[in-house]
């Protein structure tokens, strides 16, 4: 079960956050700061999984951007680690060499992509074409207008 997904840069600024379990909006910044601190302090040769409170964090770094996923104890860490990569590949395919700026200025689109992949904390789609299909259909309509 996935609890949340965060995209944070090296300065600790949140670029995207999506929670699959209820977390008060007031408590989110503190949680995010804590999570980021836990991941940033890790060295390259260390494991990509961290224990945090009663759950685990799986993180993956792409240039200056960290993607951190909070998962329950029963989840398969490595499959989530690869899911993160799949997500990035999808973003890459859509934006073409995705960068932090793409995510900043297309927050809605990144969210739409994420909604296709993960729902209620479960992985619902991993096929890249199918993930992008609804978004591409929307883009097409926008162009036609």
């Amino acid at each position, binding site marked *: 079960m996935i609890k949340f997904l965060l995209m944070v840069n090296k300065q600790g600024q949140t670029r995207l956050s999506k929670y699959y379990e209820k977390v008060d909006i007031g408590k989110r910044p503190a949680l995010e700061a804590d999570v980021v601190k836990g991941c940033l302090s890790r060295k390259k040769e260390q494991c990509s999984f961290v224990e945090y409170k009663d759950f685990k964090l799986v993180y993956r770094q792409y240039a200056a951007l960290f993607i951190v996923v909070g998962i329950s104890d029963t989840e398969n860490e490595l499959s989530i680690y690869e899911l993160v990569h799949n997500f990035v590949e999808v973003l890459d395919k859509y934006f073409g060499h995705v960068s932090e700026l793409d995510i900043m200025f297309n927050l*809605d689109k990144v969210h739409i992509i994420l909604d296709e992949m993960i729902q209620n904390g479960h992985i619902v789609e991993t096929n890249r074409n*199918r993930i992008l299909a609804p978004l591409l259909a929307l883009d097409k309509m926008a162009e036609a207008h």
Partner: protein
Amino acid sequence: MIRLLYPVHIFSCNLGSNPTALLAEALSTVLSPTFLSKYSIKIKHLMCLLNFLLSSLPPVMKEIMVRAIYCEMLGYQASVSYIHAIKLAQQGSVLEKRLGYLAVSLFLNESDEFLLLLVNTVLKDLQSTNLNEVCMALTAVSQMFPKDMIPAILPIVEEKLTHPKEVIRRKAVLALYKFYLIAPNQVQHIHSKFRKALCDKDPGVMTASLHIYLQLVKESPESYKDLTVSFVTILRQVVGGKLPMDFNYHSVPAPWLQIQLLRILAYLGKEDQGTSEMMYDVLEESLRRAEMNHNITYAILYECVKSIYTVYPKAELLEKAAKCIGNFVLSPKINLKYLGLKALTYVVAQDPNLALPHQMTIIECLDHSDIIIKRATLELLFRITNAQNVTVIVEKMLEFLRQSSNDYSTVDLVGKVAELAEKYPFIKQDPLNLCNGMQPDIPNNFLRLLAEGFDSVEEDRQLRLFAVDSYVLLLQGETASLPQCFLQVISWVLGEYAHLRPDQASDPGKVMRLLTRLLDQRHASAQTRRWILSALTKLCSSPVESSLFSDWPVRLTAVFRGVPQVDSSLSFLDGHVSEALAAGAAPYKPPHQRQEELAHEKALSLEPYGLSLPVSLSTCSITDRLTDRQSPTRLSISSSVSGNSTELSLKGGSTTLKLDGVKRVWGKEGYLVQQPKEVVEETPLPPTELPSPLGSFQSPVSQTQTASPGPEPDQERQQLASSLFVGVGTHHSVCLVRSTACQSLRSSGHFIIVCCVSSPQVSCVSGDLVEEVKGHSVATCQYAVVMMRASVDVELAGLVSYQRVPGQPRATPFSLRLSLKHFIRPLTVSTGEYGKMWLSFSHDVKQNLRLITAGDQSPLTATLDTLRDRLHLHVVDIIGSEGIVACRLLRGQPCLLHCRVHADSLAVWLRSPIPEFPDSLLYHCQKALAEA
């Protein structure tokens, strides 16, 4: 204001040319933390601005909505935009609609009432001819939907299961899954349609249906055994690469789908040989196929190994799986190593020998620089612990505990060490280090271990001595970093076993000094101080130099200043004092004045008390100061028992103390004294080595009772005390039935037990006692003690004097703490009687108490039941939101409680004929509810 208007100004000037880009830029600027702090813009104002923009600028609404999302992401609640998000979903073009739905899903919770406003929009969109709209409506529904409105859209969603487009069918299945999660009963009738979805020709729809099946199979594997063949077939097809190419991830066919299927198979095959046999082949195939060297294949392998070790075992397969793990553990990639250790943890649970080939790797991992690897290794070691290696493993665990900073893993690991300590009781000294944990039952378990001991007396003594020594050492160092519950454990252990220290006899004050130092420290909580005080009280029972106590009045005042219930101004006593003064009582005199008068009025025959009651007097001088709450009530009883020892044990009846005669003596201090209540047993036991005295056995007993509201001993501590009591006995070990408070005294070969029993069956208790020590000469004396003036707490102090050899009187002091709740008995009255009594009582107190919620009971019932169970009150009646409760003092006056639920607290009104009873009872009610 000018600063605030600045960005608005930009918007209004440039809206004509290119509003969207500028807006985005401006809002981003405004929302950046640096800008916020630089211009000290209040978030409130920002939200006003946002609201203004959203309501007045429909053409750029979409852009502003994205900024609102951004705003929430930064942690600023943008509630002004919620309604606009719903509007956008309702009225916008297709693109705006999607954004509206997205914003709603990010802003709102499942329980939000705003969601109801979305139902009509969803309904409309589901019926739309535009596939995009249907699609986004289904996506929104599968993320969040109000539970109560499911029936409104369920038929339409069901209809979509047969839609020609796979994406619609897939999303419909996911929406139904959501419904199943939030309201399983509503979708019960469509289980056959789930099966159809499982057999859908499109792999995407089938994958979606697996979410439902994983959930269903997890809940009741039996009902879905018939589907095993289908799942096996699907997995075989997936593994065999029968899916379209675009399902591949790095040339691995649909890895997450495989993992999902393996999990379902594990649930189905668990403890079921027949079902398991059906899946052996496909599991083996999965193992074989997943050989490509990529992370994702390892993820599948891990899941596969887990499944193989969960289903009914097949030796051949187990062996292959175990071999497979070797690839993980030996991998130089750290992530794989971690997963390998996790897999190995599953495997060794079945067969610890499988860990043997990886011994060296495990040892390596144990000293790994990465803490999570260490943690996983310890988890693995925990599973292979046996009698031979337990010491080393626990050592490693403790080593880890010293470095760990994660509270959760510390608690978890401490629990494991404690478990091992219980399982392999010969690890003697290790548990002592583990109380650093925070889990509350661990110290309890540990203390039980220490108090109950092992089989050998010598081992017990050594362990206890080790505990005492290590704690003394700890206390000599810096104590600020120790957790509170650890300090409590230390206090208890020192209180109980400090006498085991070899140098205790020569320097009895050492431990006490350490404890007092702890008491003075600011970081000790009120709870901890109680433990410390209790320990000190225990230590006081052995002779100590009085200089230690010279500064105690000050110290205790400081301690009690921290106790929240204390009203230091004593204002609540004003009425009582004026009443007493009116009745002719002497006005209060400060201690020094009393001392002076005492010196002058020695003729008043107070001297004998001073001589015979050294302990009780010193206690009094303490309690005098510390009783901010109420003045101590003291009382002296004198009686003498004589006769043959056997006769005594036979007689053993209860003697109610007559107090009328002594009342005047204590009146001198300004207190009225009324008491008798409970049963006091005093048993002088001549030890075995002495010949049983057949001649006359004289035992004049004198005792003093001191009522004082000190820190009350709670139930738990009393239990600890009685279990400690068992350990203390040198050659006798006496187990007392449910005693309220007990103290054992040893004096020159005698074993004296003073015990308060809060039960009316006095004879039963003495019977047990005699039973336990039969073979020795026993003398039993029993007294009933009642409390006439209510007090939160009383201290019962006295002196047992006896003569073993005629003409050689001996005396041993004792003191026991008793709480008001031991004196409370239920008062069974009818509602009518209650009403009459209520009107006739004059002393009352009103207070709000907290309500307890428990299960399906109403809070009022739950709260009153708690009070009934904990304080022995009688619940007379509960009518609506009001309840009436009655109790009385043992053989004494009643107290009535009238409770009414008011908002989320319980307004309680107590009345009694005794002035301080309502107040004291209220204190115990508060405490009982706080503990519940």
